[in-house]
């Protein structure tokens, strides 16, 4: 893709990737990436899952060594021996996951491994004072003697950033820092980043949330399939253009053509359903042939509500299936009634990673492959043949373990496993998390085909675009309640966010106010 080069700032770049490449075994995951980061600049790296963003970050922060090419600081090639070496040079990585000791205090976490001492004793008073100051610099007030486990995720993240910034820093790398934040918390974080920029710190910002990237970045580099596609000034790129560059094709073709497959017949009716601690007073209906979406922020209770309905969690409320009241005491009951639930946690709850494909495929429907107590191996093999063909599962060899498949093929295997139960209602939680774009398209088509075949589908997703692309109707949850329903032309990200956050505002406006 031809790119008109972004205007190169004139000062010497503080950090530079020079034709950097990384291979794991024979597979090159990053090819010839060159980019520069200037002091006082926010440089965003965007790309789909698997585009190589995280690998690039790890190369630039000393967690990985490049196979080819080099990293340069202030114009000179350097070799980063490891993350500690990188920190000594002023390169700081703020991890995506929260890496704090939950039972220690804020101050103890911020100074962990570099405690201030007075003689043999740790100097708690001084550390508390400095910790409070460090957190205040980030625009928050947190008592430094609070234990971390009592803080919200957003505040923990602030503590983590405060900890990272204890090291003298010239370049700060943020790896998907807003993945679990609400829009307000995100805005607070962006303020912190603008602050850093004003102090002439260079910031590298990894994200796949395009509106916030547009709001914070000075320059944007797009990665796709391990290659650098373009580096542009942020002012030249609209989120739509960013998406096109990331995906490499027109996004509109990703989703199958919407067909009005939903009938008037009610399949499932849930009323006044409670999952203690997670969902309250939920009521909704699902029609035959309908694809119903569940939107909401992480922690809104979507997964827990549906796990409660299928009998995976303690819950109470009224459920009618085909007009008849039902009570699912365990997931076996709901499976027998023709409802399957595919967990968002594919690796932890969906598949046995250490077992082969055959065993995984037949696990939930073993009865179909047995004669008396005996498993008929041959029928299992035939079932696997069929599943591989039908779901396009790409495995180098049949005897691979499920854990050796790519995320996309694992999802297809999980689909195949659950479809063996011949369900009439399919609930898919985060159907495309961690999956490449090609497989996403296949899965969307598969969902549409299910509806066409007269089955009802519930899709839970944090990707609003995905819900808008595949669903007939979307329910939005916030703080354990279903707070809104959007259908037809009203299915827009703005409309969903209004409900998900509980305010009459939209994301883009929220970000733009921050710069005022």
């Amino acid at each position, binding site marked *: 893709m031809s790119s008109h080069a972004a205007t190169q700032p004139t000062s010497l770049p503080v950090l530079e990737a020079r034709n950097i490449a990384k291979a794991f075994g024979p597979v090159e995951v990053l090819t010839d990436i060159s980019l520069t980061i200037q002091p006082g600049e926010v440089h965003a790296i965007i790309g789909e899952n698997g585009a190589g963003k995280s690998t690039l970050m790890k190369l630039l922060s000393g967690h990985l060594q490049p196979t080819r090419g080099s990293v340069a600081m202030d114009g000179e090639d350097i070799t980063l021996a490891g993350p500690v070496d990188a920190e000594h040079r002023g390169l700081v990585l703020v991890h995506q996951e929260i890496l704090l000791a939950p039972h220690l205090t804020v101050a103890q976490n911020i100074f962990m491994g570099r405690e201030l001492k007075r003689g043999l004793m740790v100097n708690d008073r001084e550390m508390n004072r400095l910790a409070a100051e460090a957190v205040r610099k980030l625009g928050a007030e947190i008592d430094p003697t609070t234990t971390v486990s009592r803080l919200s995720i957003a505040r923990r993240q602030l503590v983590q950033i405060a900890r990272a910034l204890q090291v003298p820093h010239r370049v700060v790398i943020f790896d998907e820092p807003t993945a679990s934040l609400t829009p307000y918390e995100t805005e607070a974080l962006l303020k912190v980043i603008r602050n850093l920029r004003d102090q002439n710190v260079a910031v590298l910002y990894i994200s796949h949330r395009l509106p916030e990237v547009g709001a914070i970045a000075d320059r944007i580099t797009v990665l796709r399939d391990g290659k650098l596609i373009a580096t542009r000034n942020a002012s030249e790129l609209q989120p739509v253009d960013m998406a096109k560059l990331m995906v490499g094709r027109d996004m509109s073709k990703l989703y199958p053509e919407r067909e009005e497959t939903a009938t008037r017949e009610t399949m499932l009716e849930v009323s006044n359903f409670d999952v203690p601690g997670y969902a309250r007073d939920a009521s909704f209906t699902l029609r035959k042939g309908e694809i119903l979406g569940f939107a909401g922020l992480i922690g809104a209770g979507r997964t827990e509500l549906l796990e409660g309905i299928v009998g995976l969690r303690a819950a109470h409320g009224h459920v009618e299936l085909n007009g008849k009241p039902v009570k699912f005491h365990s997931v076996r009951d709901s499976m027998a009634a023709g409802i399957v639930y595919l967990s968002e946690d594919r690796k932890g709850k969906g*598949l046995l990673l250490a077992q082969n494909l055959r065993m995984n495929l037949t*696990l939930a429907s*073993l009865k179909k492959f047995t004669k008396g107590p005996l498993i008929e191996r041959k029928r299992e093999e035939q079932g696997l043949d069929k599943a591989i063909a039908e779901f396009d599962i790409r495995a180098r060899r049949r005897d691979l373990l499920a854990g050796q498949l790519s995320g996309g093929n694992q999802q297809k295997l999980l689909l195949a496993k659950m479809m063996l139960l011949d369900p009439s209602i399919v609930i898919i939680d985060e159907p495309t998390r961690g999956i490449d774009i090609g497989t996403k398209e296949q899965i969307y088509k598969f969902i549409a085909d299910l509806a066409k075949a007269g089955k009802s589908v519930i899709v839970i997703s944090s990707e609003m675009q995905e819900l808008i692309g595949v669903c007939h109707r979307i329910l939005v949850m916030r703080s354990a309640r279903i707070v809104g329903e959007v259908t037809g032309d009203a299915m827009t990200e703005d409309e969903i966010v209004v409900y998900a956050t509980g305010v009459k505002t939209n994301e883009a406006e929220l970000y733009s106010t921050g710069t005022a």
Partner: protein
Amino acid sequence: MSDTQPNTDTRGFARKLADIDKTAVAPFLALAALFVLGALVNPSFIGIDNLLNVLTRSSFIAIIAVGATFVISAGGLDLSVGSMSALVAGIMILFLNSTAIDGDYAMLAAGIVIAIGVGAGAGLVNGAVTTIGRIEPFIVTLGTMAIYRSVTVWLANGGSIAMKSSEMRNLFRPVYTGTFIGLPIPVWIILAVGLLGAFILYKTSFGRHVIAVGSNEDVARYSGIHVNRVRAMTYVIQGICVAIAVIVYVPRLGAATTTTGMLWELQAITAVVIGGTALKGGVGRIWGTICGAFMLEIVGNIMVLSNFVSEYLIGAVQGVIIIIAMLVQRTLQRKG
């Protein structure tokens, strides 16, 4: 213990060799190595009589360890098997000493049924407390280990429980000393238990569920498997295996003492682990386990036949073996 790859082989053969699950083969290679070592130390070791003798003596641990393979494959652990053996043996002998039923054969048959019932019940206690009470199996079976042992000591009044009737002893003795088509009966029993265990674990849906639960309990639950039922059932199988071992053990000495079954849990778990079953669950190898039990007895036998190490140190050697087996297993898994 590593497989040797000659330079002359073709690529296809090398790949086939690399494809073999090394953790499955390792115990049998180790057994072969022990045979060589034993023969070198003392030629009489390799004699058929000695080997059958060793195999017979390994039968208690082999049979118990088959049960332990189920428990451990499902991600559990049972430390109570030694105490349970003593308890089952004690109750069985107490029953045989009573004159509840007329006729020795009927009495013996009833004794066997009672032994199996007590074993299954003791196993069910372990299974129910771990699953319904949601307590770590390590703690539960540590508790029942003390309970079963202590009840045995109480039943024996601090001494031993011996079979009184000599007719009954003579009737029962062949179960341990007798032969059938040239093989000692305990060896036949090992084979039968092994075949049945392998059949259940590898060929039935229950066996598949055991592996699934041990591999990842959450995935099993989300797949609609009765996780608790499967788990509890593995402890019942363990209890039944203990009872079968006791049925072979009682005719040997005709008595249960306060030290009967002492440290059998250590040996059973060792046999399972050196047999290639993963201690974290999800992999079960019945024949590997039996091979492991045989190896433990062979090591003891070699120590007796040689003068290198005092036979009093046999426990230490077995302890070393389990640690080495874990190291080997981990290394092989990392490569595989």
